[in-house]
């Protein structure tokens, strides 16, 4: 086999030195990584879709879960996530402006735009952490039944959610938190919730204006799309199957409804938050390289372009997470 015949520079396809896709090695590898990472995220989101379609009639309504804005009291569904989305899109724009300035070899502009991008990323990660904190802490509290379903409480007059703390009775009991100083062999026990099931049920009986709301979504009629509100008699019957008080959410219990919702929330937004965090770190490294003049000496700012690709990808993923977690 004679494979080293060179007849002309255009025909020298396998001899190296040319770029059939018109992109450098580093950029191609970044794209390779992004495509595979996109498939990872798609896997997570598709699994979310699977669980949601499986429990389509009982899935929590995102608008009722994410209703808080930092420093402000009240019910503002969507507002804060929309703001976070905007922050991430704007940091994406400053990134692409940095890439553009890099093409034109304007070092100072690159420095400033990279700096703004990093600030935007940091604000986003901070917001994400706050969102997690609020979600874990919980709002109103709920009861969990034997079957692991959630019973929430509403005011019959206003139709608004009622917090357990507002109506539960305080019954003196010997229930105490097991603490380290009380035992020789202390194992970390689960923290006791603020109220016992009994206290909630007694409080429920004492307040005729409170009733139970189940996970089931009404499928037809006037209240279509809302959660089912039980009558007082049905509610009392349902309360008989309650086994524990749930406040907030973790991987095992979730006061907002299906526990899978909390699991996917932690996994998907957590995985995305991890990407943003590593993006900020990589951006910082490139930022210092720009400040030190590394790319000025190299003659081109392709590294900024590559890290930019990663940063835009993180933004792109958030666009999908935003839709499937908060909107749909």
């Amino acid at each position, binding site marked *: 086999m004679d494979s080293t015949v060179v007849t002309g520079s255009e025909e020298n396809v396998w001899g190296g030195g040319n770029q059939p896709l018109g992109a450098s090695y580093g950029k191609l590898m970044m794209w390779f990584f992004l*495509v595979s990472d996109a498939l990872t995220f798609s896997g997570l989101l598709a699994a979310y879709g699977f669980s949601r379609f499986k429990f389509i009639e009982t899935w929590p309504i995102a608008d009722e879960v994410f209703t808080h804005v930092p420093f402000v009291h009240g019910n503002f569904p969507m507002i804060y996530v929309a703001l976070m989305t905007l922050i991430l899109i704007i940091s994406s724009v400053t990134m692409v402006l940095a890439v553009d300035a890099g093409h034109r070899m304007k070092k100072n502009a690159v420095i400033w735009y990279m700096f703004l991008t990093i600030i935007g990323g940091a604000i986003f990660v901070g917001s994400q952490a706050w969102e997690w904190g609020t979600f874990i802490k919980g709002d109103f509290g709920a009861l969990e039944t034997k079957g692991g379903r959630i019973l929430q409480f509403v005011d019959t007059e206003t139709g608004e959610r009622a917090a357990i703390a507002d109506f539960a009775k305080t019954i003196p009991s010997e229930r105490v938190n097991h603490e380290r100083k009380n035992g020789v062999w202390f194992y970390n026990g689960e923290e006791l919730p603020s109220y016992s099931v009994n206290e909630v049920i007694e409080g429920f009986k004492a307040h005729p204006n409170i009733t139970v709301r189940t996970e089931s979504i009404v499928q037809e009629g006037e209240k279509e799309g809302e959660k089912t509100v039980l009558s007082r008699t049905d509610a009392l019957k349902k309360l008989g199957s309650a086994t524990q008080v749930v406040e907030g959410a973790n991987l095992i219990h979730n006061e907002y409804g299906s526990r899978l919702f909390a699991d996917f929330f932690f996994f998907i937004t957590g995985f995305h938050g991890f990407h943003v965090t590593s993006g900020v770190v990589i951006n910082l490294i490139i930022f210092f390289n720009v400040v030190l003049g590394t790319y000025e000496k190299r003659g081109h700012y392709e590294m900024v372009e590559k890290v930019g690709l990663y940063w*835009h990808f993180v*933004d792109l993923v958030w666009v999908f997470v935003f839709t499937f977690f908060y909107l749909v």
Partner: protein
Amino acid sequence: MAHEHKLEIFRGLWKFKSNTQKIWGVLAFLCVITAIEVVLGIIKPEFLLKNDNAFLGLKLLNWIFIILTLVKAYYIAWDFMHLRDEKTSLRRAIVWTPIFLVAYLVLILLLEADYIYEVFRDGFVTWNF
């Protein structure tokens, strides 16, 4: 490295003088779409939420959200990630591979999920107690 940029979006309907201007134009467009999504998410027009009007098992409002998301994704990938300026072969390799795989995965998983939902609903398994 693609130093030349194609400076028009919407198939030439909106032309820009420089790449920087194009970036701001795309940002404006993305903000408008996000605003539409948020407003729709807050108002929730009733006829878009009716199960009777659902298309392929998904409410019309959700279809709108998904389509708007894909539009946003297109402009992020094409203009911010410069796919518009890359060679056609590279662009197709990057875009169609995940689209094909994800469409397949989603189809399989959602059909299966709907089947399990029916098993639960028709009382073969007690789970909501």
